């Protein structure tokens, strides 16, 4: 094999070939990605062994008309803890062929498979949950928007709801249900919660989301990468920067574009600013939910000040419209960057005094400790990531395990707690704010001068492994993993002649939402808002 391989990647390959005595067909490889083509019969042998070897399923998605193949192709993304390369098993399916469900071995597959089924109409045999996911009752039977045959445009909705969504039934003496949503009492996004309770304690919770399904993945089809950036930014408001950067990284990998060091560092500065304001919102929200305005107010004040810093740096409070494939649309003025260290110094003093006040309140600790526990055992099966996993004793952080951009040279201080309760999440999030402040300070120190945009325009690329066809742009696919404030986001881009053919986004929230059904069990209903806030999951980022 002519392609150079790292030790980790060789190890992945040897694991797969040891499972079945047969050399796997290597489809392609890139930095930290290995694509293996797998037949149906071999796949059935391989996935249980991967589960035994403690691989977790971080993504599963489908693409139609991939490479030269007509029909559907499934991509299974497997990852080993704290090892940078990911193993992507590619299964090409014949027309009308069904796929085998792996949800019983990898529970995180359940939502992925339902998502693929809704989008492409692909059936999974042996699946334990075959309800619709993002297409609610109003969508007609047999409608699968991600099929290439469907041209995007308004559709006529089902006149009478054809399939009523069935919630889990919990029956017994004294059991009653509390339906909440989709419109909630506060200023938050829509989603439905169905609690089954016995007295005060929650016995079971079922969440139903996707009320905000806007069809982002279909909208991306046929657009140029630059046109897609606003869509990536709209995945979730407070992850605008992370998703834009993730999308751009995937495109840059396909096209072989090298981003300048200045642009990479500035991107990292903005990613950390986004992390700070997101996490500040969580800390403030948690304080509000236990009625502690004296702590919440300074957090809110600092959060607003970060928004204003964002505006000074980029012209947008949400850091929008600055990231483009190839670097940044415009440079950040040095005068605004010089202000940052002064501001952050003041920031830290206020932050610490508010944090101390929070931690010295016995009533706050009483509400936080032992509430909403997420056990460590859940992290791998459900593919939980981000501060939520780190508060449950799993140190995974994409910035450290699989460094990208400026994080190759600048690493954040890791943070971890073991108890997995609300208090642990509060502490981890506070630690991460401190780490981000320190990281920003070192990123802007001795910031190199120079251009912020790679000159090789047209996404034609200048080298790399992508093939360039009739000068119209690159063809190829690549995966970018990026650590957003809520955890690891996945961006997979497939370009055909410089045009986006398939864009798959999986945010941390998509996986992390499933933890809440476990975290609330045995807790009382009034603690639900607090548990929900401590996880602070994105509805928009899940619904897409």
């Amino acid at each position, binding site marked *: 094999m002519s392609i150079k391989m790292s030790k980790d990647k060789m190890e992945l390959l040897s694991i797969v070939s040891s499972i079945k005595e047969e050399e796997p067909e290597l489809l392609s490889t890139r930095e930290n990605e290995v694509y293996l083509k797998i037949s149906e019969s071999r796949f059935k042998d391989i996935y249980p062994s991967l589960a035994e070897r403690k691989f977790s399923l971080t993504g599963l998605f489908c693409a139609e008309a991939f490479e030269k193949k007509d029909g559907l192709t499934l991509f299974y993304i497997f990852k080993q803890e704290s090892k940078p390369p990911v193993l992507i098993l590619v299964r090409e399916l014949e027309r009308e062929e069904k796929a085998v469900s792996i949800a019983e071995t990898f529970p995180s597959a359940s939502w992925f498979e339902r998502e693929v089924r809704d989008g492409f109409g692909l059936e999974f045999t042996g699946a334990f949950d075959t309800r619709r996911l*993002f297409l*609610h009752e*109003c*969508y007609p039977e047999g409608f699968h*928007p991600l099929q290439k045959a*469907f041209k*995007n*445009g*308004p*559709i006529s*909705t089902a006149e009478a709801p054809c399939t009523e969504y069935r919630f889990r039934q919990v029956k017994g003496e004294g059991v009653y249900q509390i339906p909440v949503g*989709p*419109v909630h*009492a*506060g*200023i*938050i*996004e*829509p989603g439905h919660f169905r609690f089954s309770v016995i007295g005060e304690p929650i016995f079971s919770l079922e969440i139903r989301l*996707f*009320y*905000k*399904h*806007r*069809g982002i993945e*279909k*909208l991306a089809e046929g657009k140029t990468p630059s046109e897609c950036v*606003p*869509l990536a*930014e*709209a*995945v*979730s*408001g*407070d992850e*605008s920067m992370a998703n834009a950067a993730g999308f751009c990284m995937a495109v840059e990998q396909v096209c072989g574009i090298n981003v300048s060091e200045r642009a990479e560092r500035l991107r990292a500065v903005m990613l950390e600013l986004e992390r700070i304001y997101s996490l500040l*919102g969580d800390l403030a929200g948690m304080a509000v939910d236990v009625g502690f305005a*004296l702590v919440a*107010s*300074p957090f*809110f*004040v600092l*959060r*607003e000040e970060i*928004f204003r810093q964002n505006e000074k740096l980029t012209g947008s*409070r*949400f850091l*929008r419209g600055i990231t483009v494939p190839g670097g940044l649309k415009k440079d950040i003025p040095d005068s605004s960057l010089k202000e940052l260290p002064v501001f952050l110094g003041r920031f830290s003093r*206020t932050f610490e*005094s*508010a944090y*101390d*006040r929070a*931690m*010295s*309140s016995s009533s706050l600790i009483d509400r936080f400790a032992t509430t909403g526990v997420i056990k460590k055992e859940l992290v791998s099966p459900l593919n939980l990531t981000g501060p939520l996993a780190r508060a449950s004793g799993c140190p995974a952080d994409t910035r450290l395990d699989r460094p990208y951009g400026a994080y190759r040279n600048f690493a954040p201080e890791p943070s971890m707690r073991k108890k997995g309760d609300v208090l642990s999440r509060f502490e981890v999030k506070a630690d991460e704010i401190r780490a981000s402040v320190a990281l920003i300070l070192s990123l802007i120190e001795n910031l190199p001068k120079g251009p912020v945009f790679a000159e090789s325009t047209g996404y034609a690329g200048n080298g790399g492994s992508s093939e360039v066809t009739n000068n119209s742009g690159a063809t190829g696919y690549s995966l970018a993993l990026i650590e957003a404030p809520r955890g690891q986001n996945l961006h997979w881009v497939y370009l055909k002649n410089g045009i986006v053919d398939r864009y798959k986004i999986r945010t941390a929230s998509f996986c992390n939402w499933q933890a809440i059904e476990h975290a609330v069990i045995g807790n009382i209903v009034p603690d639900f808002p607090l548990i929900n806030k401590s996880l602070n999951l994105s*509805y*928009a*980022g899940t*619904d897409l």
Partner: protein
Amino acid sequence: MVNPLSLFFHPKVTETFEFRNEELEAIGAKIKKEIPKVFGHSLAIRELDSGSDNSTEIEISNLGNPHYDVERFGISFVASPRHADVLLVTGAVTLNMAEAAKKTYEAMPYPKYVIAVGDDACDGGIYKGSYAVLGGVDKILPVDVKIPGNPPSPKEIMQGIFALVKKARE
């Protein structure tokens, strides 16, 4: 660890901040003056997300943070549409949310007003042409005021609320 008694003897955390935005104060004062002429003592707003990307929600909740604190101008965000004068709708209306959005509007008592906040709520924004959205909020509800922006800043939202209060008086 902070000595709890220090809470009584030391200056409060918030006292060290200095922020006062004259422009914001001016809009606030105008709204405060107009509200009693139409709505009684305060303006009750119910926020409804019909498919936004959440940035507009963040800006609307920012109206309550100590920098803006719009409650002092007589604007309050209420938990139920039955208590609301105004429905503040964000996001292009998704097919999945259309039914719930209509029901929320129907639950409001008369007279009732609708403000569309953000580009997506105004005309569908970047989701125009998607199978999953109906378009702007005016596709299903009578919209009185539109506030464009991606997302609009808290100040722009305040100006939109003022425009509505003025319109309601006419």
